[in-house]
């Protein structure tokens, strides 16, 4: 019995030894959890969160937009790999931009359904009205969708490059962004070097803007401007990286190998 158990343990060691994503996963989720809730606690301790409950629920609802948008691209295309349908799609007249656009549209529908549901629940259970954010809510929503799609393209680029071993990124990448996007706490809680990263993300300006609106009832146009403006380079980088990776894996023959895995 011990020999058989050891054989399987050894097999698990072999699997982990050859898989960086598996090793990273051991640390990734606890570290991300610690960062988010650690900064949240620090923010509350400083007394910087007078409307903490509202910030938390609002952050959670808007976070769902970014998460779903990213998933809409990376998950739906990866699913075609899982069911071995991707070759059928790649040899059909469907173009890659069309495939991505279809994924985005489906993602938009799913995002609307999920955020609407949790918004209603938040109002019924906690009396939190997300519509208090006013018309700026539409812009927040749009900015997070665009950023989610850009991150989705980057994620898909990594999955095309590293194959099924990198599939954990579908769920991992958004949570890599969560601590530095200041979803649940003000950005100035973060250490200076993390603030520098944070300022490069459109999501940071959205969540800061949301807190601003909830606190004062007034939208900060500067924050909205930066959220919109930063999406342009992110979308450009996402598109270019995805295109370059796709060409490279075609050239190296990895694409069809991954399709047959």
């Amino acid at each position: 019995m011990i020999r058989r158990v050891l054989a399987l343990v050894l097999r698990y060691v072999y699997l982990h030894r050859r898989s960086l994503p598996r090793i990273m996963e051991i640390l990734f989720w606890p570290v991300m959890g610690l960062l988010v809730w650690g900064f949240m606690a620090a923010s509350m301790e400083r007394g910087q969160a007078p409307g903490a409950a509202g910030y938390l629920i609002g952050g959670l609802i808007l976070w769902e937009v970014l998460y779903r948008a990213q998933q809409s691209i990376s998950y739906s295309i990866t699913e075609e790999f899982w069911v071995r349908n991707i070759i059928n799609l790649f040899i059909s007249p469907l173009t890659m931009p069309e495939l991505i656009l279809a994924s985005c549209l489906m993602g938009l529908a799913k995002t609307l359904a999920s955020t609407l549901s949790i918004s209603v629940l938040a109002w019924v259970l906690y009396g939190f009205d997300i519509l208090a954010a006013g018309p700026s809510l539409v812009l927040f929503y749009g900015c997070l969708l665009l950023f989610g799609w850009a991150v989705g393209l980057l994620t898909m680029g990594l999955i095309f490059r590293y194959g099924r071993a990198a599939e954990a990124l579908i769920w991992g990448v958004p949570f890599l962004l969560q601590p530095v996007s200041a979803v649940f706490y003000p950005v100035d809680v973060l250490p200076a070097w993390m603030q520098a990263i944070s300022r490069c993300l459109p999501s940071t300006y959205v969540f800061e803007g949301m807190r601003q609106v909830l606190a004062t009832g007034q939208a900060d146009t500067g924050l909205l401007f930066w959220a919109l403006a930063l999406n342009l380079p992110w979308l450009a980088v996402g598109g270019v990286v995805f295109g370059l990776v796709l060409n490279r894996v075609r050239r190296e023959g990895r694409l069809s190998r991954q399709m047959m895995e």
Partner: protein
Amino acid sequence: MAEPVPEPMTDPMTEAVTPAIEVQGLTMRFGGVAAVRDLSFCAAPGEILGLLGANGAGKTTTIHILLGLMTPAQGTVRLLGLDLATRRRDILPRINFSSAYISMPPNLTVWENMSTFALLYGVPERKKKIARLLEFMEIGDTQRALTGALSSGQTTRLNLCKALLNDPDILFLDEPTASLDPDIAAKVRAGLLAVRAERAMTILYTSHNMLEVEALCDSVIFLHQGRAVARGTPEEIKARADNQSLEDVFISIARGGDIFQRAAPGAMPNEACP
């Protein structure tokens, strides 16, 4: 499937028929290993060409290059007279592919899957077309069944239905009958020959079943370690190999490479297009 037989494409200057498939000097490497080496061949409109060889000989790699899933390190591919590297978007609506190693989403019904691809290919009267193809492959009663609930033989035939959905001018088939019983496999072969007779469809076919290859293919190319080592009709190949069966030729090539170097020096290993 009573559609008009298309006129073969001709070069107006020479009146020569344009090959449906024209491959010149194709080379593909994975890392430092060449999977396909300097491969050249042609297939005429309406020809059924068998691409044969042991596992790892380069058959699937060649088909994937011809589908544009891989970019070759060297060489050119022209399909239906168009350069694959620059005109892939114009070529894709006119070709299709089926293989034992691809499938469709298992949680969709047969109709939902077929309907999706009919829309992607812009198939007119898709309901009629899908029903006709499913009947043709004798799986007409599966339209409402979940694709994942089909037997492997039914799944293979469904993949073939998908591959015939757009009435392709070139059909790439990678071991399409691998999971079929002899009865259904024979029906599939008869069906493919019937479609070819109606529409001059070119088929590039890989199989490890040499009896099937003899029954179906007008000509064959044997690959060994990425190189073409023999080409001809099955009868020509057998004659050149001292009347061995095609299966024996297959085994000899898989074990020893170019057996025709000994049997008939100079016999066409790597032929360019005329």
